[in-house]
Each structure stands twice: as C-alpha cells, then as structure tokens.
C-alpha cells in the first residue's frame, strides 16, 4: 500500500516582501467573506537596536499537522485527513459547528463561516491542485516565495526549495506535539526566526496591520 503523500506549503521568507498578495488571492479564489480568512500575513515587528534592526513577514495558514489536533477532537469526522493527498480538510456537510477544532488548533488558523455556520480552513486550493494547478496563493506570489508539493517527493517544488537551504534556515511554527509539516525558510542573514518564543510572537512582535479583510 503506498504511503500517504505529505502535501504542504513552504514559504521562503527570505523572498517574501509582505505585499499581502497571497491573502488577497486566497480570498478571491475561495470567495471568503469579509472578516474571515484562510491565510493571513503577519509582520513580525522590527526587533533589535538601531541600526541593527530586523523584521520579516510571516504568512500563516493551516500547517497540515501530522498529528492534527483538529482531526482528533472533531466529533463528527468533518475535519479529516484525505487519504490520497494527505491534506487536512473539512467536510462542511458534516460540521455541526461545535468549534472544538478551533479551540484545538495550536495556531488559531481555522475560520468560522458566519453565514453557513461551519468551520473552514485552507484547503491548499484542492479544487485547483486536484486538476494539476498550483494553489492561488502560490500562483499569485509576486516574490516567488511560496511553494506547494509533496515533501516525500524529492522532485516536488517544496522539496527542491528546501534542499537549497541549510537546516539552520528551515523553521516550523512551535510544535506542541501536533507536528506541523508546513515549513518556513528564513536565513539568519535576513532575520532571526522569532517563532520559538511563542509568548513574544503573540504579544510583543506580531502585528496584523496591513492584513486584508
């Protein structure tokens, strides 16, 4: 039996210019209502002392966790892992709107659809990728900073991009046992990765200014 694919997004923050195109493209492609989002660009605020200050932009969306807590807590199986693509998805027809998955997501990257009263999230544009296309955020990234593909396929865009960088430049959001597989590339020469200190990320350095509604 073939092993499940590990499709995910890889974002090269060395190349991200904080233009918010991925946010806009995501909203347009998936028809996401005002105030709701599946993808969001955060500015990790300037840190350091002048003239040695640094900042970077951190686009966040579902991290496609290997031990996805949202799947574990969902009482109906509405949140599930697709056996073919390995993606964590939501079957909205099964969602009872209990929002336990929103509580269980360590990153708060699930969205509540007020009109349909169901939980939604990034699908990595399954409707496009199943037809061989790239997700809208990847296609529309003007910095060519976003990549989509299977981590287990050495010829995928994500594997090839990650292979260009040393381990010290490859990062994941804080792991509390959920095993996020989406990866970020941030070289020390560009900025120091701030994601290790979760308290700082939430209270000190993170802003959402510029993020679209």
């Amino acid at each position, binding site marked *: 039996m073939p092993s499940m694919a590990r499709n995910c997004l890889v974002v090269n923050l060395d190349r991200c210019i904080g233009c918010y195109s991925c946010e806009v493209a995501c909203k347009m492609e998936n028809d996401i209502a005002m105030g*709701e989002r599946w993808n*969001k660009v955060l500015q990790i605020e300037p840190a350091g002392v002048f003239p040695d200050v640094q900042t970077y932009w951190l686009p966040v969306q579902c991290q496609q966790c290997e031990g996805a807590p949202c799947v574990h*807590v969902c009482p109906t199986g509405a949140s599930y892992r697709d056996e073919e693509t390995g993606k964590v998805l939501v079957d909205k027809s099964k969602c009872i709107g209990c929002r336990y998955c929103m509580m269980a997501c360590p*990153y708060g990257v699930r969205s509540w659809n007020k009109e349909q*009263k169901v939980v939604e999230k990034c699908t990595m544009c399954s409707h496009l990728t199943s037809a061989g296309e790239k997700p809208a955020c990847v296609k529309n990234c003007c910095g060519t900073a976003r990549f989509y593909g299977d981590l287990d396929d050495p010829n995928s865009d994500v594997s090839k991009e990650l292979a260009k960088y040393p381990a010290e430049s490859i990062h994941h959001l804080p792991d509390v046992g959920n095993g996020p597989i989406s990866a970020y590339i941030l070289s020390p020469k560009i900025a120091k990765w701030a994601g290790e200190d979760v308290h700082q990320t939430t209270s000190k350095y993170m802003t959402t200014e510029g993020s679209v509604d």
Partner: protein
Amino acid sequence: MEAQWSLVLFTVISGAGAWLFATSMMGALARKNPLPTKVETIVAIVLLAVGGVASVTHLKHIDRIFEALNHPTSGIFVEAALIGVLIVLALIYLIMLVRKSGESGTRIVGVVTMAIAIIFPFMCGYSYMMEARQAWMTIALPLSYWATAAVAGAGLNLLLKAVAKDEAASVGFAGILTVACSAVAAVCSIAFFVYAGAWLGNAKSGCVAWIVATFACIVIALVAGALAVKKAESATAAGVAATAAGVVCAIALRVAMWLVGTPLLDFFLQPLD
C-alpha cells in the same frame, strides 16, 4: 478566551445530577441511608436531561448530530455516550423502584449507575485537555471539574435528605460527604489554578474574581456540610447553602477555566462567540 456558557451549564447541571445519585448511593452502600429514593432519582434524571439539552445549544447544526457516530473516540462523543448511558441506567433504576423489584437487583443497577455517574463528570473535563490551550494541559483540570460537580451533587443530596426529614444518620452522612467533596474540590482546584496561574497574565478580565468565588463557595459548602453533621435534625438551611455554594463554585471554576484558556498562538483572532 471567552466563557462558553452553554458548556459551563452543561457540565455543572449534568454533573450535579450525576453526583446527586452517586452520593445517595454511597450512603446506601455505607448503610447510612436506604437506596436512592424516587425523588432523588427523578431529580438526577431531570438534571442530566437539562444539562444534556444545554450542551447542544452551542451547536450550530444540531440536524447533523448523528454524524457523531463517525468518530466515536472524540471527547464530545464520549460525553454524549456517557450521559446517554447514565440516563438510561437511572431510568431502569427508577422503574425497578416503582415496580418494587428485588433489592439486590436494584442495588446492583444502582451501583453500576453510580460508577458511570462518577466517571462522567471527570470525562467532561478531560475533553478540554488539548495542547493548544497550555493552561488546560493538566490532569488537575478534569479532577477539579469532577470534584466541584461533586460539591454541587453532594449539597443537593444533603438538601433532599434534609427536606425529606430522613434519619439523623442519613442526613449526617450526607453532610460528611459534602465536607469530603468540598475538601477534595479545594485540593483539586488549588492544583489546577497553581498550574494555570502561569497564563493568568493573558487571561480575560474577571478571571481572578471567578477564582476567588470558586474557593469562597467551596468553603461555604464545607462549612454547611459540617453544620449538617452537627445538627442533622435541622439541616435544611445547611442543605440550601451547600447546594447553592456547590453550584456556584462549579460554575466559577469553569468560567475561570475558559477565561484563562489562552491559545498557544491565535493568528486569525477569531472569537468563539
């Protein structure tokens, strides 16, 4: 994080009903009172049912509830299964009482019902242990859920026995159970809030007041239980105080739990209300 009132009321009301039956059955096993009466059993069933209804009020698509059969290991499924089994067992017990079935059979059903009634409030709290809410990742959380519901149930048991003018031994033992449950609740709640205290700085406002209310009400319930032990023949007022304090302490602990439940990261800032 905001308090989810339907879930607070669910675990408090149904937990009180479960512990009402359990504490009365404990008295029967200790030979301090007869088996749980019809009134006690009916009150317990009503509380379980009302609590169950409260739990579904936070669901936005109750029409899809049977989809829960797809995932029988989730916390919500376990809670629903336990409350369903508990209500059915309590109904069977009640029918056996009404039909005046043999005491040994009724006792066996009562013991099984008591066992489920003791497990159920713990499992309600256990569902909240999730890595995304670091303040909740302690076994002290389900234990304090379990113990504060016990204070409410034990207080109600004391009240019903006092109102029914049970024998002094029966009322006195109900008072002892109230004291014991209050003491256990104090220990469990201290353990939980000491652990969760690290996240208090990020908690929603009012959290400290709810924590203070939790312990104040535990003390009131404990004192009321002790007074009932001392004056078993006139324990109605103590029963009222113990019940009220038990319910409020259970509510206060849960509200404080929600308010201190800061997410690990909250990128989308989507409120759950």
